[in-house]
């Protein structure tokens, strides 16, 4: 048994930490809330080879696995770096299953083209229907309707809301349904009938979202089958969970540092059990999330039938951990922690928005229950 990162994976993580560390991402996150420009990290991602992380080597990718993608996502999350990998990586995982011409896939791997994943949620033991994010409310929207034509093309109709990284993407990989089940369709740059509206009222400026509408939009049918499309949905969950882990680590480190230097009643506040126990709870949740991410990474490769449960558990743990850690870092800092000038609110904003994306953490909890209870 070896349930730890390999030396290569440790290097990948360190390289990602170094690369993000060279950019003032946290300051940029605050400035972006007031209309500032976010640093463009796509060239960084291309240079590091993250864009082709999940594409096989034959097509110019690195042929790595979910765990490697998660390690990069965790480092992005640690410093709130706005790098559109949450959209790109699941899209390339789907496109890598075939159906796309080699040239386009190669460009996705190199990052010359950037893709976004227009996700659909696989049905579960309660409701078998594939659904997508609605604009608002608890009722999920039906997945876009796909009508296959000749020549491997298809016409798609439908709307998907709150799609990460869709704005400005060159390629959209959308999951819809036809009479036989889920189908993935790829749309190239400027495809007719595809409209991407930037979501307004941005709570976390580092996480651009878009509403995507397909109106008799013509795209190319991809080869990925139901298993691959399920896997992509849970891969996106695992990446969000990984981003959360990095942010939790940062919140904990900042909380601990402040708890050692801030004194009340003649003692460092970290000496009080009320603070100490809360911070050990952050640590407990952090390590639980890490273990579940390793589980998800391992299942992605070696135990595909458990990947849905593993990624859902990681998403549930990571979302709750970040919410808890972000509230703690504010609380440990006292009133100043809730001011605009402080960094803590930026992590809090990340926590609140991330927990609601792609079905939300509540849906991940329900999915895990369904996976385990249905056996």
């Amino acid at each position, binding site marked *: 048994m070896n349930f*730890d990162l390999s030396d290569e994976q440790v290097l990948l993580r360190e390289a990602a930490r170094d690369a993000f560390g060279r950019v003032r991402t946290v300051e940029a996150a605050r400035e972006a809330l007031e209309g500032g420009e976010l640093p463009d990290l796509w060239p960084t991602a291309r240079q590091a080879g993250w864009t082709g992380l999940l594409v096989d080597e034959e097509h110019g990718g690195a042929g790595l696995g979910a765990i490697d993608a998660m390690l990069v996502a965790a480092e992005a999350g640690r410093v709130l770096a706005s790098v559109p990998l949450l959209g790109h990586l699941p899209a390339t995982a789907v496109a890598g299953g075939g159906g796309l011409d080699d040239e386009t896939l190669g460009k996705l791997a190199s990052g010359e083209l950037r893709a976004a994943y227009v996700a659909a949620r696989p049905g579960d*033991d309660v409701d078998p229907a594939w659904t997508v994010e609605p604009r608002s409310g608890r009722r999920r929207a039906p997945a876009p309707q796909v009508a296959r034509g000749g020549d491997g093309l298809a016409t798609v109709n439908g709307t998907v809301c709150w799609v990460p990284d869709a704005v400005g993407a060159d390629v959209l990989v959308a999951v819809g349904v036809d009479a036989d089940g889920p189908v993935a369709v790829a749309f190239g740059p400027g495809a007719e009938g595809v409209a991407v509206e930037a979501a307004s009222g941005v709570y976390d400026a580092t996480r651009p979202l878009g509403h995507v509408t397909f109106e008799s939009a013509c795209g190319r049918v991809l080869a990925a089958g139901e298993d691959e499309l399920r896997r992509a949905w849970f891969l996106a969950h695992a990446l969000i969970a990984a981003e959360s882990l990095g942010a939790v680590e940062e919140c904990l480190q900042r909380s601990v540092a402040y708890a050692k230097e801030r004194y009340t009643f003649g003692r*460092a506040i*970290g000496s009080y059990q009320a603070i100490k126990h809360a911070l050990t709870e952050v640590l407990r949740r952090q390590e639980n999330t*890490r273990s579940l991410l390793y589980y998800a990474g*391992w299942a992605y490769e070696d135990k595909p039938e458990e990947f849905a449960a593993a990624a859902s*558990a990681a998403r549930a743990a990571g979302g709750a951990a970040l919410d808890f850690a972000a509230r703690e870092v504010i609380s440990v800092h006292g009133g100043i922690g809730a001011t605009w000038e402080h960094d803590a609110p930026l992590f809090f904003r990340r926590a609140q928005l991330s927990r609601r994306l792609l079905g939300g953490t509540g849906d991940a909890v329900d999915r895990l229950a369904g996976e385990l209870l249905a056996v």
Partner: protein
Amino acid sequence: MDLNDTPEQAAYRTEVRAWIEQNASQAPATRGRGDEEAAVAAHRAWQRRLAEAGYVGVTWPAEHGGQGKGPLQQVVINQEIARAGVPGILDAIGVGMLGPTIIAHGTDEQKQRYLAPMLHGDEVWCQLFSEPAAGSDLAGIQTRARQAEDGSWRLSGQKVWTTNAQFAAYGLLLARTDPDAHKHKGLTMFVVPMDAAGVTIRPLRQISGEPEFNEVFFDDVELAPDAAVGPVNGGWGVALTTLMFERLTIGAGSEGMGYRADRFAAAIASDPVAAKDPEVRARFGELATELLALRFTGYRLLTAISRGQIPGPEAGMGKITAVNGAIAAGDLIADVLGPEALDPESEWSYLISFLPGLKSAGGTEEILRNTVGERVLGLPPEPRLDKGIPFSELRAKERQEVAS
């Protein structure tokens, strides 16, 4: 990242599995109520059988009757035993924690005398550390050992939460030998024959009604001059060794505790209405997240152990996750099944009653969080009133405060 056996481990697993299949008919039933003496005798025979096959104390050095193997081989045995549904050894505390302490600190004579019968289950051991007034603050124990002119010792005091004391041959006991020293400095570890004159053992019944533990009284018990394990007044270091092996045992054994999401899922899924109920699913999904995290944190811990790393205090967090996850599971299962879950014959009734006590066992949640906060996160300790003063003065001070 690989959860599969190496070829070497796989071969070992095959061997262990075949042995258990051949010998399972000789295994006693997992312990229930009824004739305890007969059950203990059968369990003892089972340990001897396992020991003779080389499956007890596999991590002990060969010179002491062990196999000199790594902790992962122990895990393979634990997993195969759990898979076959047969009981493990009778004296897990002795073989897992107390024997290794004697190996680390005992004299050659002690190792010669005690280790082999312990391994074979001929002499079961118990751990005599906690007292009514010293649990989390273990160095605050008051059981007193005084040395006579001839070098022999006289022992008086009380221990509590003592598993297996009712049939143990020996106990490893921490006693105060110098009350005028600082509390950690005046302690010594002893081997105590449980049949010595002046030893009284009383069962301590738990919420379930079962006596899981004992309290043990020592009334002027005489111990031989060579009863001390490790240096006189150096008992705290010996105790820390035992506690380290306790963490190792818990770390290597987290799979076997039975607090598994799939086990609880089966109980809930037996009610198809519950399995589709959103509230039940939300509660179950939350606790399943915790228990899955426990399982895979356990694999991380085992990986570290197999590389020769010794688990630090953070390993104690697993106990917090396990206990609270299992409490949530018992609570949910009782909500789903209704009063039937609390029937004394139900496994859930036992689980529900057992867990409140487990919350304090092996360190309360609060003391574990203090330790992790200080040793792992590096947060400053609470101010202490017991630093730098003799234990005898500390006790007087405490009594004074209570009186005022």
